[in-house]
């Protein structure tokens, strides 16, 4: 029998540091957030994704796992007391990899009255970089930000653009690559 990977070594401080990192990433799209904890990561999740799960997921949030993230299910149940959602539409948090991301419109986009009741998608990609081919505009960005997000399937940005006209409904995405994360809230416009 395989031993379960540990969670945060210091649950209070590590969760606080991880939350501030993702809060800053969500408030300033295009900036990279870095995660030093947890020291061990479960199969199926990178360090940034694992840190976000330990920080934000608990018994009140249903989680959907893409096929490549499914091996983390036992770890999520043990450390976060998380319920697993049967479909992306039933999930408050979804963890997936870029290659197998369901169509974005399948996630819960919230309602016009309660747009906060929407899925937050944590999407593992092969690489994140500042100064890439994508141009970001919107709240949290002084003029423009340039970033590179590797490994997304063709048509991904087209799907995301389709969601803009639904605002305030929408999908907030945190792209993660190993220890780093970059957030694109629903308000960020992406070109290029």
């Amino acid at each position, binding site marked *: 029998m395989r031993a379960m990977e540990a969670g945060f070594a210091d649950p209070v401080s590590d969760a606080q*540091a991880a939350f501030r990192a993702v*809060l800053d990433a*969500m408030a*300033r799209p295009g900036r990279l957030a870095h995660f030093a904890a947890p020291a061990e990561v479960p199969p199926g999740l990178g360090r940034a994704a694992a840190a976000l799960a330990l920080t934000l997921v608990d018994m009140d949030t249903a989680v959907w796992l893409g096929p490549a993230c499914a091996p983390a299910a036992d770890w999520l149940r043990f450390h976060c007391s998380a319920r697993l959602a049967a479909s992306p539409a039933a999930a408050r948090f979804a963890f997936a990899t870029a290659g197998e991301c369901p169509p974005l419109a399948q996630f819960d986009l919230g309602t016009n009255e309660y747009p906060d009741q929407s899925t937050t998608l944590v999407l593992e990609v092969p690489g994140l970089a500042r100064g890439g081919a994508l141009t970001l505009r919107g709240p949290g960005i002084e003029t423009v930000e340039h970033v590179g997000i590797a490994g997304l399937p063709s048509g991904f940005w087209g799907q995301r653009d389709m969601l803009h006209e639904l605002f*305030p409904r*929408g999908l907030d995405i945190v792209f993660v690559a190993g220890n780093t994360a970059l957030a694109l809230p629903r308000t960020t416009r992406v070109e290029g």
Partner: protein
Amino acid sequence: MIEGYNFAYLDEQTKRMIRRALLKAVAIPGYQVPFASREMPLPYGWGTGGIQVTAAIVGRSDVLKVIDQGADDTTNAVSIRRLFANTTDVATTERTEEATIIQTRHRIPEAALREGQIMVFQVPIPEPLRWLEPREAETRRMHAHADYSVMHVKLYEDVARFGHIATGYDYPVVVDGRYLMKPSPIPKFDNPKLDRSPALMLFGAGREKRIYAVPPYTAVRSLDFEDHPFRIEKWDESCALCGASDSFLDEIVVDDSNKRMFVCSDSDYCQTRRAHGHGPAAEAKPATATKDAAE
């Protein structure tokens, strides 16, 4: 530091719930996210919303400043600062530039904020439409449809009755061109500081159980009319202590014969100016041509 409580008073599950609400608030600028506000060791009305937001974000390396109507040394500010000193051991300061988190009751500091700073506002009534439409289901639908005509009518009725928009504080704003938002009862003097600020602005309403946010560099427009543009307050006087003519002034009655004195509401701004050698304006009062006719 008091033993027996979790870091920053709140338990970890409560912090997770508030943190999830904060992320959605930042993602939907100006939208009020419902949250399960907790009982705090202060009564509702004493900043419990702001305290819960601060407790959910504060960490050991933060430097906390707390102000009440601009001042660091008033009862509300002192007791909230002491609560966090007792439950977190974080460094506290009265200097705006040194702070990483500034919890505030009803003011934004005069000194320019910078990237990386977080303002936490204590909000009594978060719903800008509440005095115009008491039903929550209706105001929620009005926000969903961006139907804010009733607020424009209210401001127009002000113009029709008083000749100007008679709202001095909690002046309604539109965030990122979409959501109508109450900027907590800051004086309208502070509204321009919300617009495209480099700092992150978080708002917490404890009794009303709402959290909302304005991300950095986000457009925040005060509602007005072409022929009645938004204007901030101006004073004929300058601060009686530091001579500042660009800050928000409090009028204080100083004796039984109704003698008055105007001083900066922002105590740190005033003290910093005095430390740099500024004093009361020596000459007769400057010309009064700048007075806002609307005031």
